[in-house]
């Protein structure tokens, strides 16, 4: 017989609680994941899949920062496996690179697995992460432009009338106890009125009693539920004691913003340019959304003339013909005048074009831009020139650069990797000096 006894330590739930020691390390890991996402935002923005999705959409984000790097062998090295007895050369047994390569199986030894790692975030989270380190003074809400808007009411005291569901039992009982009802009730009892009375008896009581008592009798004798035709002396809650919730419509200032997205849809805007513009607009729109409660978007497409369109048309409908940039801007000005008065709305106007404009229109464009600057919080111009085309096409950047308004900004986007950096620069340029 062996001498030393084996020890069995029974299960205890406190041990199990203690064993959640990984909590700290898990939190640290999540923080690293978040950091990694932030570092890779530029790449993610360049991925088409993100742009224009709704907010609850879950995005798979490849995580680079939290891989654990080692010296390991590349994937072209051969390995050894075991078959069912009929293996033949040339048989396909799986996919290379991670998946399928003995997944979930312990391959001979401890081959370091491919450390590919993805995490799920919602688009909203992603946007939150994106903007959390962008603190931009000129996107602050202006008090003047806050609009008084009626929201669903907030509780505001009590009332004597109301619907049953809003009865405030506590307040009602308080009133009941506090009021002189109690003493009145005992006055009746002391006067020797019986617990139960028929209609005839009650009539007799009423005739005999004086005015005060009669009122009390009417109040405290209620129909007996159990015996029809009988009345019972009950200390009922009087109508005057009932208290109901009262909701008052709440009028409070709410920040409203309108974003004018103005895009060139002339023949020269090809799919690539439109895609770049769309990405840029998407970011701007999301950004404005984070700052205001109520954001409206107006899509304006223009070539030689402008019109307000739906989102679908805005991005997908091709137009042809020449370009008058001022037409788009003037359309925006027109809509502002019609619907969105600058004292009530925070206005943002963003224009994207490839810089092609009829030369005769240039002075008008400058003038319209200046007009917009006067009424808007921010006016932006993004020129989209896929790499290389800048040199032989005309550009509006030089012409519009002369505008001196503080709230005017312009950027150049050459390829999709530019979108995030230029977007950041776009918003960060005018931090207070």
């Amino acid at each position: 017989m062996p001498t030393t006894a084996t020890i069995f330590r029974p299960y205890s739930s406190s041990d199990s609680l203690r064993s959640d020691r990984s909590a700290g390390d898990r939190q640290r890991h999540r923080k690293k994941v978040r950091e990694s996402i932030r570092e890779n935002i530029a790449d993610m923005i360049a991925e088409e899949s993100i742009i224009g999705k709704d907010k609850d959409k879950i995005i798979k984000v490849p995580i680079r920062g939290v891989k654990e790097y080692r010296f390991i062998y590349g994937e072209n090295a051969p390995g050894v496996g075991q078959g069912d007895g009929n293996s033949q050369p040339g048989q396909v047994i799986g996919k290379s690179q991670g998946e399928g390569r003995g997944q979930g199986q312990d391959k001979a030894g401890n081959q370091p697995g491919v450390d590919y790692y993805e995490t799920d975030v919602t688009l909203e989270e992603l946007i939150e992460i994106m903007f959390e380190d962008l603190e931009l003074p000129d996107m602050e809400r202006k008090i003047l432009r806050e609009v008084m808007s009626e929201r669903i009411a907030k509780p505001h005291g009590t009332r004597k009338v109301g619907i049953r569901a809003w009865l405030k039992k506590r307040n009602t009982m308080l009133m009941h106890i506090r009021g002189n009802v109690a003493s009145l009730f005992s006055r009746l009892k002391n006067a020797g009125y019986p617990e139960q009375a028929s209609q005839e008896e009650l009539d007799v009581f009423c005739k005999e009693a004086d005015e005060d008592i009669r009122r009390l009798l009417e109040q405290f004798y209620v129909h007996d539920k159990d015996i029809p035709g009988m009345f019972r002396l009950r200390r009922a809650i009087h109508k005057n004691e009932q208290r109901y919730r009262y909701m008052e419509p709440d009028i409070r200032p709410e920040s409203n913003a309108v974003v004018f997205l103005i895009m060139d849809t002339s023949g020269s805007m090809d799919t690539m340019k439109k895609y770049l513009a769309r990405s840029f607009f998407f970011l701007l729109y999301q950004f404005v959304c984070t700052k205001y409660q109520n954001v409206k978007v107006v899509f304006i497409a223009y070539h030689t003339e402008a019109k307000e369109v739906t989102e679908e048309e805005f991005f997908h409908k091709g137009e042809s013909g020449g370009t008058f940039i001022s037409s788009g801007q003037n359309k925006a000005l027109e809509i502002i005048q019609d619907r969105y008065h600058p004292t009530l709305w925070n206005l943002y106007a963003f224009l994207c074009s490839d810089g092609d404009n009829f030369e005769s229109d240039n002075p008008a464009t400058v003038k319209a831009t200046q007009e917009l600057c006067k009424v808007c919080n921010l006016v932006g111009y993004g020129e989209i020139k896929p790499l290389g085309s800048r040199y032989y096409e005309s550009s509006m950047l030089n012409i519009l650069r002369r505008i001196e308004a503080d709230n005017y900004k312009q950027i150049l986007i050459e390829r999709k990797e530019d979108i995030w950096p230029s977007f950041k620069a776009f918003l960060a340029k005018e931090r207070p000096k």
Partner: protein
Amino acid sequence: MTDWDVKDLEYWDEKIREKVEEFGLSCYPQEFEICDHVGMLGYMAYSGMPSHYPHWSYGKSYEKLKTMYDYGVSGLPYEMVINSNPALAYLMRDNSLCLQVLTVAHVYGHNDFFKNNFTFKSTRAELTLNLFKIHAGRIRGYLEDPSIGVDKVEPILDAAHAVAIQCRRNLAIKKLSPEEERRQVLAAAQPTLDPFQSVHKRQVYTSPDLHKVPLSPEEDLLLFIRDYNLYLSEWEKDLLTIVHERERYFIPQIETKIMNEGWASYWHREIMNSLRLPQDLQLEFLVRHNQVVRPFPNGLNPYHLGLKIWDDIKRRHDEPTLEEVEKYGKPTKTGRQALFEAREIDRDVSFLRRFLTEELMREMDMFQYEPKGAELVISKVSDKNDWREIKETLLKNIGMGTIPVIKIEDADYNHTRTLYLKHDHEGRDLKLDYAERTLEFLWKLWRYEVILETTVNGKKALLSYSDKGFSTKPLK
């Protein structure tokens, strides 16, 4: 909820231990701890250690394990054993009695292996748990130290983890002291004795460069950096030591995975079959046992492979076939002797080299696969011509063979304190993006340029990381 209590376990444990004695296994005292799945996931994330220093990578590993478990991608192990004295094992609370008995028997197999296999001689089992606890305490101390803190500790740990496995593989070989090393280099430089001295030209003696650091290529990357980077503060050196010791502790387990699992499976089967279990337990045992040791299609199950070989060793010594007697001669040892000898003196590579025979490979239908485009394609099967090559490939892919050998050649390359490393290339290229990031970690630890000589697509190349970033150039 469960069909057993601790009393049942003690009852069966006593019976099992009688058998353990009878079979001649020699174990450390054994302790069992019963835990639930949350506890088990926690132990798995921290390599089974009851106390372990904190690092985000263990949080990551926990999340991964938990996700896999929650979605049913992978189950939990029935047990976990720690190589320590007394040996510590965890049992899952929700397993059936049969599984618990099987697991207890299995654990004794591991326990015996830990105690007797030579690779584990260098780990000091009686100190294991305490060592990990002390390490955890020290690192927590640095984390809480207001002048250090997590933001300084974590980068060092990240970097140390990246290169920790680059260390000496065979811990049974003694590490030479600097003095011994110097003597060895001097002796190696001496001209060899030439019986035809009188007719040969006189050999010229070139004195070796004794100022070179290291004198001979150094495999222990972390220790070398700890000893030769003068800019490291004491706590940083301590972190490197701790990470190195942690890794060193696990190397024997990496080196003996197949043997160890095979050995434990062999003995749990022997013990369970000799216990005369009640019929219901016996039937469940057969099912569970076969689940554990079944082959994985297109993969390799170390339990299956190990058990197969141990069985084969026993059979070949006790009842060899006529062809085998013709081929290898009459066995000189009994099956049991052969088993216990191999359990003591082998590790996976030598074990497979010695005992994985052509017949066994064919029986198991082992094949070699290679990536072709996006697919993995079988390139060779174990027939007369190719079995040797497949075996060689297998030997390269087990134990520490999966880790590239990288040695420090020179710590003052070009007299600029550049760390010059050399990858012993034996046909497999490094994964370059990983190499780049790992070099960056090395650079952070060494704080001067780090150069790695390796071979990429058949051409020698130098990968370097310095304050200017990563660069590669071909080596002439």
